[in-house]
């Protein structure tokens, strides 16, 4: 596997400009001769499809949803960063770049992050021109809010529905191209595999989720925009259907998987309420601005919160981090909450949460002011738990939320398989070992609107339009594989449901490769996962047939891939024998109990090469260099 990041030469401020000039272009008249497949129509995929359709490419876009508007991106609440410096508070492209590299704990590529910060400006302009109703100030100019990990106010938002409004903007631009005939939309189609012909990505094999038909689609290039893999944990804040299949299948066909162990846990989610809960709900992090986090000092204290006197409460973040208090970064707040619950000080019926208390804020500011700030969140909390946060403290607990790892890509966002591009949460590119709040939307849209539509031209201009088409024998082979897998799932006719296996995998991943990891636990996971996978294939029951809408079959196929992927995630976590960002190895902590990096040995991207079923994958490395942001240790004391 050859890893050439192809970072352009020159000063960091000029790399992207120079590169745009140096890249070869496709003649406008020739663009329509090129077919491009885009899998996924979330923020990254929809924005890419709209822009490439506009440029004149012949775009085929795929999603398993009934409409592009349903993608997981729709659920993003808080906002999107951009270095507009509209607040004149000292923000700049350089500062956003700096914050993102530092927030990523020095495990991302400087050149990519710089470009991201540059393009952040264009995203806001684009969204506003499309009619995205971002919040405004009284004078009519755009408003901003602050977000964790930054000392400036650079987050743009549309109430608590920023992801929805940005996705609708991209979706509408996409539908405009559907109308213009440049984009063909294939809804309720799931990509089952990638087709590589003579070393180049040439198409995909899909299943029509309504008819069950397995079909081939060929193209000159394939772009994956299929999102993240947090659902390997079964319970996460991701949409229920989010899965790893597209990127995992591409990995099996030769694409390197980078840093799979980097998974982010969000500190403020509503704790699980029972065994049959299907997903976890995020409560915006902004609540930590005014809420105070505490647990009872006494283990197993069953008194209701208002009956626990002040002296018997432990405001542990304020105690441990007097400077930052309740506003410590996500990873720290999450780990401390887990420690409290593990120590038996958890609260709530299942003793699986910590309190986030607004009593003092209400005393200080008044109920109205608190309601103005957080009213919609309080209402959402009440809807889910039936408890009134104005009267009793909220209960929160960390949950898997975002995955920084993904398919390896070069500066052009192309994987090591020529012609296969990867954008949005599906790639590994910009967030290193930890993502800052409000930066995922920014990255997905930068990739989709502004990077890949340009960089793909550099690739396509060097390859004549492909005439092979889906008649090529390679497609038949991949189709056969896909059908065989489906048949095998349907014919296993075992005794256990798909979800029961997924819950078991999720629990195992959470316990052994979750918020905290250690060598012993990871080795245990590496022994257990193959066994669970074997049990799954022998004993799963998938009712129904392959020729109709069959949601059990869809789930089973996705879980089969998670069962392979989970193993790679644990292997990567084991191999990365340091702590960095969200990857916390218990063996590597500072005296203060924080993540301790080892830059001498691990300032690299780990890129895994697939070697076949049951074979140990091979690790390759892309060394990272930090010329602009000096390596330093975080401290929030």
């Amino acid at each position, binding site marked *: 596997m050859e890893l050439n990041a192809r970072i352009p030469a020159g000063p960091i401020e000029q790399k992207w400009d120079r590169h745009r000039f140096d890249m070869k272009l496709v003649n406008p008249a020739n663009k329509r001769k090129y077919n491009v497949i885009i899998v996924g129509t979330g923020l990254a995929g929809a924005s890419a499809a709209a822009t490439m359709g506009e440029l004149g490419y012949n775009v085929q876009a795929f999603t398993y949803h009934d409409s592009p*508007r349903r993608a997981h991106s729709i659920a993003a609440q808080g906002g999107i960063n951009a270095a507009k410096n509209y607040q004149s508070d000292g923000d700049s492209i350089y500062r956003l770049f700096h914050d993102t590299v530092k927030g990523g704990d020095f495990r991302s590529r400087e050149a990519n992050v710089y470009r991201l910060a540059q393009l952040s400006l264009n995203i806001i302009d684009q969204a506003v021109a499309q009619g995205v109703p971002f919040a405004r100030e009284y004078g009519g100019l755009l408003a901003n809010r602050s977000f964790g990990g930054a000392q400036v106010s650079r987050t743009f938002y549309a109430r608590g529905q920023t992801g929805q409004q940005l996705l609708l903007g991209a979706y509408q631009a996409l539908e405009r191209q559907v109308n213009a005939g440049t984009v063909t939309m294939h809804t309720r189609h799931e990509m089952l595999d990638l087709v590589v012909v003579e070393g180049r990505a040439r198409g995909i094999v899909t299943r029509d989720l309504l008819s069950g038909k397995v079909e081939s689609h060929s193209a000159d290039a394939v772009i994956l925009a299929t999102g993240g893999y947090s659902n390997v944990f079964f319970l996460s804040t991701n949409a229920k259907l989010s899965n790893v299949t597209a990127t995992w299948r591409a990995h099996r066909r030769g694409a390197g998987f980078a840093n799979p162990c980097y998974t982010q846990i969000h500190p403020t989610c509503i704790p699980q309420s029972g065994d049959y809960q299907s997903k976890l709900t995020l409560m915006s992090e902004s609540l930590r601005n005014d809420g105070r986090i505490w647990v009872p000092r006494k283990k197993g204290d069953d008194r209701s919160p208002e009956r626990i006197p002040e002296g018997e409460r432990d405001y542990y973040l304020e105690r441990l981090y007097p400077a930052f208090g309740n506003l410590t970064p996500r990873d720290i707040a999450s780990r401390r909450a887990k420690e409290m619950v593990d120590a038996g000080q958890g609260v709530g019926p299942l003793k699986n949460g910590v309190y986030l208390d607004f009593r003092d804020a209400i005393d200080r500011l008044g109920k109205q002011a608190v309601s103005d700030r957080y009213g919609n969140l309080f209402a959402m909390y009440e809807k889910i738990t039936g408890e009134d946060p104005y009267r009793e403290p909220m209960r929160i607990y960390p949950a898997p939320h975002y995955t920084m790892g993904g398919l390896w890509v070069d500066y052009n966002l192309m994987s090591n398989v020529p012609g296969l591009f990867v954008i949005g949460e599906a790639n590994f590119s910009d967030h290193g070992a930890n993502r800052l709040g409000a930066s995922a939307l920014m990255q997905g849209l930068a990739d989709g609107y502004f990077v890949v539509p340009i960089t793909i031209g550099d690739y396509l201009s060097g390859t004549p339009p492909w005439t092979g088409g889906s008649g090529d024998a390679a497609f038949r082979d991949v189709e056969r594989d896909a059908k065989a897998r489906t048949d095998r799932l349907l014919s296993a006719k075992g005794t256990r449901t798909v979800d029961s296996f997924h819950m078991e995998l999720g629990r195992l991943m959470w316990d052994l490769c979750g918020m905290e990891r250690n060598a012993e636990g990871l080795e245990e996971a590496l022994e257990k996962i193959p066994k669970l996978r074997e049990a799954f294939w022998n004993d799963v029951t998938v009712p129904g047939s392959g020729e109709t809408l069959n949601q059990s079959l869809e789930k089973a196929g996705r879980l089969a891939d998670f069962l392979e992927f989970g193993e790679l995630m644990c292997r990567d976590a084991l191999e990365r024998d340091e702590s960095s960002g969200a990857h916390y190895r218990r063996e590597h902590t500072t005296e203060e109990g924080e993540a301790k990096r080892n830059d001498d040995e691990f300032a690299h991207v780990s890129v895994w090469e697939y070697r076949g079923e049951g074979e140990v994958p091979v690790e390759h490395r892309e060394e990272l260099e930090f010329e602009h942001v000096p390596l330093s240790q975080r401290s929030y004391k």
Partner: protein
Amino acid sequence: MRLTLHVWRQAGRDDTGSFETYQADGISESMSFLDMLDLVNEELAQEGKEPIAFDHDCREGICGSCGVMIDGVPHGPKSMTTACQVHMRSFKDGDEIWVEPWRATSFPVIRDLVVDRSPFDRIIEAGGYISVRTGSVPDANTTPISKGAVETAMDAAVCIGCGACVAACPNASAMLFTASKVAHLALLPQGQPERYDRVLKMVDVHDEEGFGNCTNHGACEVACPKGISVDYIAQLNRDLVRATLSFRPEKGTAE
């Protein structure tokens, strides 16, 4: 608690379909309505029977995937709440619950509780956007927009495209859906150049897709999980009248 469910089962578009009865045992108050369906489905799968098909994804009331009639009411008993956000504490032990798909000619049933809502995409495709090319746009702060205008636009833009408005309407009209997009864009300066063209095109496709006319019944507003007001339909109608009188190109003239 223990509940009796009557759930619409239909194998495919051309099947006639019928209600099946299931007992749901061990349901706790903290479960969501969809968690409860998951539980019933787990038991069905365990017995090797086909689970109930239903659309869902975010389970947070924002993707618009879920949507079923619960006891004849779109999204069930709680106002301004999608089916995925309805919790079982809204029901009591021993309740009988009827669960059906959206019923509308323009939303044919695909299977069980899953319907085809693709006409919504086609209404947007007809003109539910502002035609700007990627990259060739002015700085975002070039045009100030009053806070009030943006808030009113946002009140319309929050539509999640679930289809409850259609299911609630006695005429199976999709006017609230269409109006929310028309109004969102018409309320912003960016949306002005295409304002009248847009409303004509979107309403044409709305009608071609077989949705009924709006007769100001108001059931859509009540059913809407986002509380979108029928006032936006009035606004659409005003724009439509203006567009038809002064804007629509004569038939036969070159455009």
